[in-house]
């Protein structure tokens, strides 16, 4: 996920205890310097090689493609001539992720806040433990649960949305079918990323210095005012990072989405209706049956996913950096 990297060169300590002459760099420092530099370089090389791999492998399909890669919704890369585009994949990926973020971010922050600053200590410990455990549950488990348990229970919600909020285009349902939809995939993603978000934000919330909390309380702040005055401003970069980690997981989630969505290549704005597809799910579903150009086309779609996550991350970092001067760090 994280893409920028600060090289971790250690400052070289000057003279030490035993006399004042001699080599100014000790062997231990040299070894550590080498190791940390090596680790830094390794990450950069890995990133670079992934990017190069994606570009090189994507070129054959992009050259063979006769449709517009960005705006076409068809996916027939192994036909002759090849016709494919990522529009539907972008739509499905972004929509499932938006649904997931809209649901998971506020709830995740709420859970973290409750655990860190409202719950009695014993309950807080237990809840924190459970969220951390949930964050580690493999996504296939969420996928199966979403398909078998959540889908039937979600149909009522889909109907309700259609009946009462159907005037909003995305909640309209003209088919009368409510399963295997982007909404359900989004809800499962939300549940999947919820523990990630709340575990990280909780970690940040408990690090807010006591000084800041007391500053607010001594001014006559209520608990909630204290949260707004002291906790949120201090924790904001961490909250954004947590949301971005969750978003990264949602954007790239494969198995759970592949199990739930009934794969289709159209852009259907009615998110309670069956159908839709995402980059990751499409790659997983298509990889085994794909011919040479088909594989290359899938890699090309992977390249787009890669770029999307990069852009999202850099955007988040820009937000954090914008008010660095006012951050809790100084």
């Amino acid at each position, binding site marked *: 996920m994280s893409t920028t990297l600060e090289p971790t060169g250690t400052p070289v300590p000057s003279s030490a205890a035993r006399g004042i002459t001699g080599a100014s760099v000790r062997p231990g420092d040299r070894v550590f310097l080498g190791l940390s530099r090596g680790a830094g370089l390794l990450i950069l090389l890995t990133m670079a090689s992934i990017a190069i791999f994606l570009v090189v492998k994507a070129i054959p399909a992009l050259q063979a493609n006769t449709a517009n890669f960005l705006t076409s919704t068809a996916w027939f890369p192994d036909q002759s001539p090849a016709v494919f585009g990522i529009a539907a994949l972008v739509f499905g990926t972004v929509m499932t992720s938006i649904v997931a973020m809209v649901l998971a971010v506020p709830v995740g922050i709420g859970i973290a806040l409750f655990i860190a600053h409202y719950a009695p200590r014993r309950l807080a410990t237990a809840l924190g433990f459970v969220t951390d455990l949930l964050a580690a549950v493999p996504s296939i488990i969420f996928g199966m649960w979403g398909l078998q348990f959540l889908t039937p229970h979600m149909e009522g919600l889909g109907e309700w949305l259609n009946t009462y909020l159907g005037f909003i285009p995305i909640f309209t349902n003209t088919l009368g079918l409510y399963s295997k939809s982007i909404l359900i995939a989004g809800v499962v993603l939300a549940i999947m990323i919820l523990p990630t978000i709340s575990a990280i934000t909780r970690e940040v919330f408990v690090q807010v210095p006591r000084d800041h909390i007391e500053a607010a309380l001594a001014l006559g702040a209520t608990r909630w005012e204290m949260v707004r005055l002291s906790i949120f401003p201090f924790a*904001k970069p961490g909250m954004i990072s947590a949301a971005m980690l969750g978003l990264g997981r949602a954007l790239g989630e494969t198995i759970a989405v592949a199990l739930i969505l009934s794969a289709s290549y159209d852009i259907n704005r009615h998110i309670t209706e069956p159908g839709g597809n995402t980059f990751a799910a499409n790659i997983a579903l298509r990889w085994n049956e794909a011919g040479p150009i088909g594989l290359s086309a899938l890699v090309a779609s992977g390249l787009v996913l890669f770029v999307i996550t990069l852009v999202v991350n850099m955007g988040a970092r820009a937000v954090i950096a914008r008010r660095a001067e006012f951050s809790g760090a*100084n």
Partner: protein
Amino acid sequence: MAKRIDVTDLDIYYGSFKAVEGATLSIEPRSVTAFIGPSGCGKSTMLRALNRMHEVIPGAYVEGKVLLDGEDLYGANVDPVNVRRTIGMVFQRPNPFPTMSIRDNVVAGLRLDGTRRKKAELDEIAERSLRGANLWDEVKDRLHRPGSGLSGGQQQRLCIARAIAVEPQVLLMDEPCSALDPISTLAIEDLIEQLKERFTIVIVTHNMQQAARVSDTTGFFNLSGIGKPGKLVEMAETDVIFSNPTQQATEDYISGRFG
């Protein structure tokens, strides 16, 4: 703008631990009262009990009475939030809100009481409070810079400005100079001298010279042993405490024989 405090037979507990026992004292309006004593003697706890800040620690409670102009701060339907709006506090380490500008720090408390104020009014209060804290001239050109960019002494005066911006009845100071250099300490002490014309001030200090310099009344706290509760040994006019204390323990402490 200043009220008196009367404490009667106050025991302060943190859970099952009794931190202060049987404190009875009176604090006159528009005066400076100093609490001195060795570490762990309960003087900071006593201070925090005056605006219920000790309740920030779960399980803390008191037995006894704390009256602010006759009104019991621990009465059944008293909201600690309102107590803290009436009795402000300045801490040992300067703690301006790091994400706020200097001006926003000063008016932070005014945004809590529910009344909407115009920007011009807030600006005026910010200026008045910063002047009141002897900080205006140093920061008037950078009101919109972060408060965390100031020096330690300036940050502490910023915190004092923030505390007096809400016009409290009483100002509590918990070792306000212990993290500051001597020049900044002097600036704060001068400020305390001016502030007592408007506020009732209670200050906890480790520095006996400071207590002697700034306070009108001094209370000496001590504890009879490790794990035992702290007690108010004696309280009197500062001159009397430092020249002619009635208790041997006070005499020993102020003459530097222990503590």
